[in-house]
């Protein structure tokens, strides 16, 4: 009796995995296991379906925020997927990149509004453990803004909160008083062409 139940359970699990594989884009080729955002996530890594997402990390020269393809646990509905993306984005960066988000920063909550605005509530370490540089502050901000808006088209703007509250800036430079749209100009070192035009 127990053996039959075990076989049925195995078949159901196999079927679920097969369906998941059809529905979810699988990452191509070998890639490092995504860093776990929590012990539960670590335990479930082997069995969880995943998506491939573009996450953003500081380049080796420290001057840009390139997109890097990474595996992220599958989540549904959209707010769940957004949480998983941010959790992986908060985890340590794969070599040779550096995380744009200060170590120890945790995701406290994440909400998605009707109009595509996401609110990402981070723990205070995002400020207290920050280097304090304007460029790094831009990278911290746009790592999260871009990770959500690039991978989830339903999210068009992102506002960062700290410890549940709206903030003017993280460390004194970047205006965070309103939701920010995707901005890929920080992803490479190409000169800001608009600067020359004075726009």
């Amino acid at each position, binding site marked *: 009796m127990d053996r039959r139940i075990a076989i049925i359970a195995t078949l159901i699990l196999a079927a679920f995995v097969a369906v998941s594989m059809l529905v979810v884009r699988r990452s191509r080729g070998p890639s490092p296991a995504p860093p776990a955002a929590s012990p539960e996530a670590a335990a479930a890594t082997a069995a969880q379906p995943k998506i491939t997402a573009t996450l953003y990390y500081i380049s080796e020269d420290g001057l840009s925020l390139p997109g890097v393809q990474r595996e992220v646990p599958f989540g549904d509905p959209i707010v769940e997927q957004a949480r998983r993306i941010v959790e992986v984005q908060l985890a340590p960066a794969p070599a040779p990149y550096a995380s744009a988000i200060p170590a120890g920063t945790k995701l406290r909550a994440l909400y998605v509004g009707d109009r595509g605005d996401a609110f990402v509530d981070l723990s205070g370490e995002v400020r207290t453990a920050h*280097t*304090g*540089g304007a*460029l790094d502050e831009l990278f911290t901000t746009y790592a999260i803004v871009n990770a959500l808006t690039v991978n989830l088209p339903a999210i068009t703007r992102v506002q960062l909160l700290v410890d549940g509250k709206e903030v003017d800036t993280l*460390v004194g430079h970047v205006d965070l008083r*309103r939701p920010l749209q995707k901005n890929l100009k920080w992803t490479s070192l190409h000169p800001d062409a608009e600067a020359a035009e004075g*726009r």
Partner: protein
Amino acid sequence: MRASAAAAVLVLCALGGAPAAQAPGSAAPYTVLSREGRRPLAARVMAGQEMFALDELARLFNLTIREDAAAGGLTVTAGNQTIVLSAGQSLASVSGRLISLPAPPAHEGRTWYVPVDFVTRALGPALTTRVELRKPSRLLLIGDVRAPRVVGRMDPLGSATRLTLDIAPATPHTISQEAQRLIVKFEADTLDVALPASTSPDLVQNIHQGDTPSSIAIDLGPKFATFRTSDVPGDRGAGRLVIDIAGQATEVTQPTPPGPPAQPPTEIPPLIDLVPSGTLRAIVIDAGHGGNEPGAKGPGGALEKDVTLAVARRLKGTLEGRLGIRVILTRDGDATMGLDERAAVANNNKADLFVSLHANASMRPGVSGAEVFYLSLDEYGDAAQRVAKGDSESLPVFGGGNRDIEMILWEMAQARYIQESAALAQGVESALREHVPMSARAIQRAPLRVLVGANMPAVLVEMGFITNAAQEKQLTSDDFQNRVVQALVGAITRFRDAHVPAPVSGAR
């Protein structure tokens, strides 16, 4: 940087007029003015040239002098720079670069003398501090000392009299009447004055240095009734203050009530009261961070807030001294200030430019170089569009409270000046490039909170990465800070010359 209070000890005696009888070969001494105070520096004439004793210069500038008797030369070391002088040669080598001198060094006994121009031509380039020699005033200015030249003259004006003060560079000042005195106070550390004797003792008994080094006192005569003043722009950054002093005996059509507004006597021609367009009158320098917000920290412990304040103070001194521009610091101490407050200081002072100084930081300790930011409005989306249509919002005002300042939104305030801010940023970037290492991201647009509310062209300068150990040392050094100041003064001067501020009508 020493406390500015130290400047209070500065007293200037260098007035015009012939010195007392000099011993043969000697000349009237120079007066050395610096933040440390005032001291005399003897000069003497040798073969028709005014000379300073090299030993005295060595004490003044911490120089090391080594004499090479065999080669007949002298090696003068100033910091890490070396100046080589040769007996009989009107040339000196300053760290390998040849400069000319009006006369060769000479010696008398064991004492070597150099032409007074040695100070500006050889020591100036070798030292990191500003050195200015004013021969007519017999002044030697060292460092960021604000010492405008004030030359007065008196002209009769019917039964009244007119005192004209030419001020170079133009320097902000206030005039007040205290009992039987008019006091003109200048925003300066000291004054380099040449004042006339009174030609109308009934109205003006005497004109002399005031009780403070940066003021002039006009002792009023028994017939004084009223006065009026006007500021007139002069040439090449100079200013002119005209004070008309009228007496009771003049044919004034109405009795003059005490105090302002004074009714001018009818025979006095109207005074010009205009401010030239296309000139910079006031600049706000924002020393980033401060108080309990230290900003970024270097591996050696240097704090961004200290670096920004040091450079802001230097920049203020140099801008005021060289360009005669009124400079306001958002903070002149280790104070915590909100970002809105900083813009409010600029807006409330109707500043023509806003320059925010910062030091950068990176996760990557190797990153280095200066960066210049101006505001990007893209991130403000619909709000920026609403601003463009002229919606209003109340603005925080320095000193507390909120007020609609000419119905301008913070966003709209800077939006009006994006083109000029871009031009200023490019000017600052190219000037910095001549003096300090630049980042590969030398000029950038970003939604920076401190810039968005500024109602004038505004830039944020990241002078270097304090998280880079080598740059941390630079950022805290006099040499590097002076190079940044030099670049910014150059950029601001070029911006002043090239851009006539043309704000939208009613925006200011």
